[in-house]
């Protein structure tokens, strides 16, 4: 593994020890870090501001565990993609917005709010992004009914 990537992972473990639930290294360039929802601001700010990662996008889905969000960050110099994985409870899916740290999170949070009904706290404008005025309120098209 690239020593720079190794160093980042070691640093992450050291700095945010109790908040890092698990680290999965699929290969040299794909790392997934499981974290609790409340740690997202601190860890994403560390990656973005201190380590100069680029925010790619976030993917959300509904599973048996609740709502899962993968925040994808890229460390372009090394080709590393780091996924920050959070699980939100099905009954109250809400998490802090990342728009305070970088503008790039604005649209995707609006989209996740719209298609899955996840609430982003402190987002400046949670209006609909892709179905303005032509979709029913309170109906979330990407929600599934997971088999119990």
């Amino acid at each position, binding site marked *: 593994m690239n020593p720079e990537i190794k160093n980042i992972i070691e640093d992450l473990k050291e700095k945010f020890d109790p908040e890092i639930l698990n680290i999965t290294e699929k290969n040299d360039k794909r790392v997934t870090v499981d974290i609790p929802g409340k740690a997202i601001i601190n860890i994403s700010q560390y990656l973005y501001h201190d380590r100069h990662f680029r925010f790619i996008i976030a993917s959300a889905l509904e599973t048996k565990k609740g709502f899962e969000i993968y925040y994808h960050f890229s460390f*372009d110099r090394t080709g590393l993609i780091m*996924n920050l994985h959070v699980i939100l409870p099905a009954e109250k899916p809400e998490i802090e917005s990342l728009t305070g740290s970088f503008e790039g999170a604005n649209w995707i949070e609006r989209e996740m709010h719209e298609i899955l009904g996840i609430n982003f706290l402190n987002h400046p404008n949670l209006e609909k992004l892709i*179905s303005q005025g032509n979709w029913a309120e309170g109906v979330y*098209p990407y929600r599934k009914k997971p088999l119990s």
Partner: protein
Amino acid sequence: MGNKKIIPIGPYHPLQEEPELFKLYCDGEIVRDIKWETGYNHRGIEKLSESKTFDQVFFLVERVCGICSTSHPFAFANCIEEIANVEIPDRAKYIRSIIGEMERIHSHLLWVGLAGHFLGYNTVFMWVWKYREPILDLFEIITGNRNSYAMFKLGGVRRDIPNHLIPSIRKILAEFIPKLDLITGAVMDDPVIHARTKGVGVLTKEDIIDFAAVGPTARASGVAIDVRKDDPYAAYPLVNWKVITAEEGDVFAKTEVRLLEMYESVSIIEQCLDKLEHIKEGEIDVKVKNVPEGMGTGHAEAPRGEVFHFMITDGGYTPVRHKIRAPSYVNIATFKKSCVGQTISDATISLAAVDPCYCCTERMAMVYDYFTKKPLMGTRELLKLSHEKTENIRRRI
């Protein structure tokens, strides 16, 4: 917004080929704020993908965008081959890169032409689109289609580039270079284009990082990111080429980056063709029996920037979740910085500068008799004409 006047651009407007609505809040001639509405042609492709098998998803993602119709299959192939842990044959790698670079050339030419049109410089538009045609013919010779090439599949490519075609491809590329020189000279040395584009729609390095912008938009502001170099895939690590950047961040810098990138693309294609000649024909795919349970991320450098695909699989035949992020998704948001403070006339080219693409490809053609209203030509007849045209082009070279 106070008592500022709203100038609407769209939803259907000759400035852009696709539906979108920009509201420019103007104070006299100066744009003070901008708001936009998109989603006019949201087709739910991510959701649709969950009901398709992995082989079918290739055809589906090809239709995300008509202009970068190889970039999405490219990123998807990287994503799914990461999950299935597949290594494709060398010949397939070179063919993938050749198609990817040809697409970059035709897409950049399309943009340069449209930019000329937006500036009221229609000579540039006519010339550039005329010289784009041989590239589209080349696509037709290799893949059978001018667009939506259906070349990619899980584990390789669907068609080979036979070695006997390589000299003709080289000839078309050799003829293209003087035309590219002409276009580059015409754009880079023209005082009118300088006056209209220099210092217009400037995005700083900080803006790019804040908005997470990608592609030529980022590279024109001095942010040297390019997936082909940073996380090499297909044949890009096997050939020599360089990332083109500029520092100014204005519309002129974006034009410069795109024009110079085309030279790199031609060089990459030529190097790939050199390599193809020494690899046995026909070895273009490997068999993939099943896609295991897992998670994959794949990205590829489209003409507009990084295309990103993320997929979760459960060991079955269809994706559980498939997230697609097109480059315009992050680039369009930068309008907030590039247009505000400009005059209305400069705002149009600033809007066009990121080469926005709102992903529309739905279409169907029927030819009716004007008087009897009876259909003269349907799918079958048009397809027959299309096949005849492809054969004609193939005979001509």
